[in-house]
């Protein structure tokens, strides 16, 4: 199955067509951590040593070089990094180390052969996959927002232009009226990709209709949701697409100042966004005379300071104004009175990247994918216990099964092996979201069907969990997070989340009674009602959704003082399944306190009084006979 959206189009070859070969090294946060920059340096040396003339720069005019070596943004397959792509051969090498570079240069670049051992091996079929068109992880996606992440050099505005970049912004500034732009976005049915799913067209129209000499557009790049990194990847991989979308938004509502609020935890994204803004200024796309239209537009990149609540619109505005990032009641909505009291719209990174495509290709093309109430595609960060962790983009309405089991390649156990029956749950939407179970595997992922089962799309973090994950522990993890991140303004959020956390602590440490559960549910409802912003309103969601789908696990903790997965150390009671144990004695040797006894070839027993619940026996046992730890 060839996926047309993944095909490398001819213009991507760049450098006028004379250059035949390209080597692209992924330089997203994940690959850089695994040594991508060293790999790039090694390529530079080795290619030159092989007598191939190499350039790292993109040029539109004809080039004298034989090969172009460049870095790209995040390609999404982070676990397999550093990733090296060779074009036009369409070879994708993974986990490339400095030592492998010489072989790639001599075998592939000089000899024209594929280095088999560096190819991705499909764990299901054991097949060596040559390139992205053979790898199920990529094959099953439809990438639009992420299309150019991974091919173009994110630090080259010229390459972005060569790919048709800034054509949409130009069209918006020179050929479209404000009303036309808003109409097109409204018609596309685009909904905010940051979490709430509010229709973007409606937001823009509200701000456009305001009569004010000063208006602002803010790009919300404060991706605080733990376990999500879609926005980071787009900013690192194709920063100009975000800036272009921001420019279109500004034109649509009549704003002359824009701001990109990026979390400080993403240094690479900050650097690349700043570079993009500088380059756009140099080209005259930003400044006093945008595209010669006579209109003024400025853009500033601001770093957040590590507060999750600042992802909320009004809290972000407070933070930009130099205050503590605390939300205020709505209305008035920011579209009426936002930054410095002026009409302001705040759009997520991914929303803005979609805007560019809608203006370029029209609302109808955009609507062709996805469902009617949730059109288009959505990026998800797929992490946790899956074989292929990484960044994906699929149309709304794709089922959970397709995403987790097919694209994700299945659920892994603690040794990293794919297990057919390993799936337990998926947490979607982070601290505001909920969990989905085996029963939801065929649920289409879109705004409304997720809401109907007590979860939400959120920003798009999908954390897969295997059978060894304790759901009470996960609920506690999120409650600990929201409790720490509560800004403190609303009493029920500030004190309520703290009390909920202490009740969850009681549960996992064995102090809870049946009353704790009743109180927990009651307080959850109160926190939802008594909080001003999304953080507090949704903070109880992980608890409520785990209570809804994994009640038995709570009951085991509360009434039987037993944690079935053994993750809650105070309630772990490891035992050996006599039907599985072959009496190999391996666990007994590993036990640091000598709590395991038994004769050779006969089932072993754990002495609960001696056991310190370290889990060494379970790690050792190849037959998985040790349970409850």
């Amino acid at each position, binding site marked *: 199955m060839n996926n047309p959206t993944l095909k490398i189009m001819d213009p991507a070859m760049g450098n006028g067509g004379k250059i035949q070969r390209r080597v692209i090294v992924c330089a997203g946060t994940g690959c*850089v951590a695994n040594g991508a920059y060293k790999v790039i340096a090694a390529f530079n040396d080795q290619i030159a040593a092989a007598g191939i003339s190499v350039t790292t720069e993109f040029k539109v005019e004809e080039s004298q070089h034989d090969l172009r070596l460049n870095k790209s943004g995040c390609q999404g397959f982070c676990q397999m990094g550093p990733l090296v792509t060779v074009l036009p051969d369409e070879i994708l090498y993974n986990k490339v180390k400095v030592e492998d570079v010489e072989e790639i240069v001599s075998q592939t670049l000089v000899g024209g052969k594929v280095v088999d051992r560096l190819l991705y091996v499909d764990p299901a079929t054991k097949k060596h996959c040559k390139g992205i068109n053979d790898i199920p992880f990529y094959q099953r996606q439809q990438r639009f927002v992420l299309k150019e992440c991974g091919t173009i050099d994110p630090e080259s505005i010229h390459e972005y232009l060569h790919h048709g970049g800034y054509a949409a912004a130009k069209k918006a500034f020179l050929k479209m009226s404000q009303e036309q732009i808003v109409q097109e976005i409204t018609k596309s049915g685009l909904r905010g990709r940051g979490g709430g799913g509010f229709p973007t067209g409606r937001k823009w129209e509200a701000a456009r209709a305001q009569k004010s000499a000063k208006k602002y557009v803010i790009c919300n790049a404060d991706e605080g949701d*733990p*376990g*999500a990194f879609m926005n980071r990847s787009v900013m690192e991989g194709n920063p100009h697409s975000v800036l272009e979308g921001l420019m279109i938004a500004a034109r649509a509502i009549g704003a002359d100042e824009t701001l990109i609020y990026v979390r400080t935890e993403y240094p690479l994204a900050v650097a690349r966004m700043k570079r993009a803004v500088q380059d756009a200024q140099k080209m005259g796309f930003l400044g006093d005379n945008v595209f010669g239209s006579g209109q003024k537009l400025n853009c500033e990149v601001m770093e957040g300071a590590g507060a999750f609540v600042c992802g909320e619109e009004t809290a972000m505005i407070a933070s930009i104004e*130099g205050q503590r*990032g605390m939300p205020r009641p709505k209305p008035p909505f920011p579209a009426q009175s936002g930054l410095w009291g002026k009409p302001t719209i705040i759009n997520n990174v991914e929303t803005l990247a979609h805007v560019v495509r809608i203006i370029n290709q029209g609302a109808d093309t955009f609507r062709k994918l996805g469902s009617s109430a949730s059109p288009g595609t959505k990026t998800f960060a797929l*992490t946790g216990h899956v074989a292929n*962790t990484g960044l994906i983009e699929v149309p709304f309405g794709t089922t959970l099964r397709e995403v987790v089991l097919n694209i994700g390649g299945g659920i892994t156990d603690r040794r990293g092996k794919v297990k057919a029956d390993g799936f337990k749950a998926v947490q979607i939407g982070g601290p505001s979201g909920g969990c989905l179970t085996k029963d939801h595997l065929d649920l289409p992922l879109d705004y409304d069907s997720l809401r109907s089962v007590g979860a939400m799309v959120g920003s798009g973090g999908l954390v897969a*969990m295997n059978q060894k994950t304790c759901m009470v522990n996960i609920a506690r993890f999120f409650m600990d997070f929201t409790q720490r*991140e509560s800004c403190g303004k609303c009493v029920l959020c500030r004190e309520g989340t703290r009390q909920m956390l202490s009740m969850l602590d009681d549960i996992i440490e064995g102090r809870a009674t049946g009353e704790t559960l009743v109180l927990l549910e009651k307080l959850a409802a109160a926190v939802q009602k008594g909080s001003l912003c999304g953080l507090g309103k949704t903070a109880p969601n992980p608890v409520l959704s785990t209570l809804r789908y994994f009640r038995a696990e709570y009951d085991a903790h509360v009434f039987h003082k037993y944690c079935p997965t053994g993750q809650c150390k105070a309630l772990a009671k490891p035992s050996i399944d006599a039907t599985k144990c072959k009496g190999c004695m391996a666990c007994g040797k590993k036990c640091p306190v000598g709590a395991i006894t038994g004769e050779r070839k006969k089932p072993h027993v754990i002495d609960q009084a001696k056991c310190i619940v370290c889990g060494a026996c379970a790690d050792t046992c190849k037959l998985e006979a040790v349970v409850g730890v």
Partner: protein
Amino acid sequence: MRNQPKPDCKGRKFVKVFTILDKHGRKPSRLVPILQAVQEEYRYLPEEVLTYVATALDVSPARVFGVATFYSHFAIEPKGKHLVRLCDGTACHVKDSIPILDAIRKRLGLDEKHKTTPDMLFTVETVACLGACGLAPVLVVDEQVHGQMTPENGVKLIEAIIAQEQAQ
């Protein structure tokens, strides 16, 4: 004169703060970027500098302290020479990040309340999410990202720094 305190009123180290304040036009609305720049300079936000910033911006010290303590990125206590940050985002958490934290804290004699070693060599903290979830669990030592971490390898990294420090 309230807006223009002399740069050397409390010793030479305020000169840099002065430059930072000027770069941001001494606007109270620029408080967050100003504090970020100050922290980059001093590695934390010293109390006397915060008071100085308040005076220079003509706002109350309470406002400046309020902002400095609200955001987790700001530190009002000095940090150790080596900053060890363990990611405890969801992906890292489900892939057992906490045992790594426990192992490192145990090696350095630290806990939830004591984040910096008495010799000021190490500060160990957790961070919400670094967005490198594909590499979970992730440990960042002095800006260097280490993926797919284990408690044993985490402690090894610490041992290596200690050995390096002792050699000097």
